């Protein structure tokens, strides 16, 4: 009897795993089969035409990469600073630590559309508008949706992930190293920069990877903060709008005048988004592995 229960349980875990595998296979298979035909060099390098029913998706690819890049520049250093404070300076019983800790954990659970609204209200209407009033009275320069504000909004969204991953790797660095460094007359800052951070690089990169995957896939935060519905020319300034793969998919699937004609393009775009996310991840993983080899040589 106990043997039977045991076997049934093993079979259940295996079945659940297979269901997951099957789902992934169906999604990927579906996307590849339907998206394959429309894929071409032109599709990747040209701008959309005829109400998105023809042409390519280059502006959306460019916009997504630009967004993720700007977001990382903001989120990673900022996240690392907070993680250093949490892991190295904050005392567990201090009120500041407990409150910020709680804030970070809650931030991680906020629905992404809320970040979108926050970005609109805070970055565009408060900060951007404020800049305009002081520097460009009467003009709309920063007080409008743009790739800059979309990246900032996305950075706020991905910050908790960066903070938590980096903090955990820093905490995993054995206390012995801190003691050894301090006992040699190093300051805390020197200890962090020369001993702790080099060992936590893999965590920093993991945080960046997670942030990038999230940032490349999320649509809601950029809806009101900078993504353009249709904008064939590439943004050249931080205060211009941009096209975004995820938003482009959303736009095509809900706003297209001819659903059947858009379908192949839609599938191909999804395919490109998946490949792009995969490539961004892969790059970050390669950089991480390189650094790891370098620090533990």
């Amino acid at each position, binding site marked *: 009897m106990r043997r039977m229960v045991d076997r049934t349980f093993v079979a259940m875990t295996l079945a659940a795993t297979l269901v997951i595998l099957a789902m992934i296979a169906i999604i990927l298979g579906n996307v590849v089969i339907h998206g394959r035909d429309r894929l071409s060099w032109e599709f990747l390098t040209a701008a959309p035409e005829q109400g998105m029913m023809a042409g390519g998706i280059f502006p959306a690819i460019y916009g997504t990469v630009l967004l993720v890049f700007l977001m990382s520049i903001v989120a990673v250093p900022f996240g690392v600073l907070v993680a250093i404070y949490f892991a190295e300076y904050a005392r567990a*019983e201090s009120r500041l630590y407990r409150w910020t800790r709680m804030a970070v954990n809650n931030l991680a659970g906020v629905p992404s559309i809320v970040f979108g609204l926050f970005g609109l209200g805070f970055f565009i209407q408060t900060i951007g508008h404020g800049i305009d009033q002081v520097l460009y009275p009467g003009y709309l320069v920063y007080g409008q949706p743009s790739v800059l504000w979309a990246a900032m909004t996305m950075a706020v969204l991905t910050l908790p992930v960066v903070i938590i991953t980096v903090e955990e790797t820093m905490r995993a660095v054995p206390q012995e190293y*801190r003691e*050894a460094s301090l006992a*040699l*007359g*190093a300051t805390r800052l020197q200890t962090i920069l020369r001993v702790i951070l080099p060992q936590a690089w893999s965590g920093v990169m993991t945080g960046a990877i997670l942030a990038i995957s999230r940032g490349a896939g999320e649509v809601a935060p950029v809806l009101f903060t900078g993504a353009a519905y249709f904008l064939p020319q590439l943004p050249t300034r931080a205060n211009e709008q941009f096209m975004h793969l995820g938003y482009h998919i959303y736009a095509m699937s809900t706003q297209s005048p001819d659903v059947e004609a858009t379908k192949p393009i839609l599938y191909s775009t999804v395919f490109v988004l998946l490949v792009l996310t995969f490539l961004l991840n892969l790059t970050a993983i390669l950089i991480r592995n390189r650094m790891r080899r370098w620090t*533990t040589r």
Partner: protein
Amino acid sequence: MDDQIKISVKSANFFYGSQQALHEVNISIRRCFVTALIGPSGCGKSTFLRALNRMNDLIPGTRLEGRVELDGQDVYSSSMDVIQLRRRVGMIFQRSNPFPMSIYENVAYGPRVNGLMKNRAELDVTVEKTLRSAALWDEVKDRLARSAMSLSGGQQQRLCIARALAVEPEVLLMDEPASALDPISTAKVEELIYELKRTYTIVIVTHNMQQAARVSDETGFFLNGRLVEFAETKKLFTAPAKRETEDYITGRFG
């Protein structure tokens, strides 16, 4: 101030939160002596050692009452620069803890963070000199760029000693430096201690009474956070004045 005395501790009481770990400890540690601290686990000898370079400051909720003096200077006064204090009072830990860097970088770390060297050539000289002092140079001179993790346990501990020597400390605190080493490595470290006491004042915490007897000039016996007896090593081991000391060194407890 007595010129022979390097470190002087006067009625030190140490607390982890509300728990008292040291009671009224008085001790004078002599310059260029090896002072051994023995006693059973949890007797406060390591806590005492870590109070001398304020390593206990890293543990939240700890405090020391009383006075610790280094060359007559109050170590716990607000005017004491803790960074400078730790450069002058080096420490070797129970578990060898070289940084995951090259052998060279490990030794160069201290001089670098303290800004002691002007250029690479000077640093090279210091690295060689301290590795020689730690009796490690001949074993590693051809692989200074290799990871310190590739060394054996005994070599790692001697590397940690070299690393501590590179900042030119005046005092070396050793917290059971040989407890994780095999007998041959232990012998090497002990030989090294014997060499080093010509230049440095050494305080060594050890579980191993033979080791204390072999390497030290004076020995203190700790029990339950109190310094029970402090005397010339030979005297303490052959004719202890206190009953507890005798019980401990003859192996009746601990």
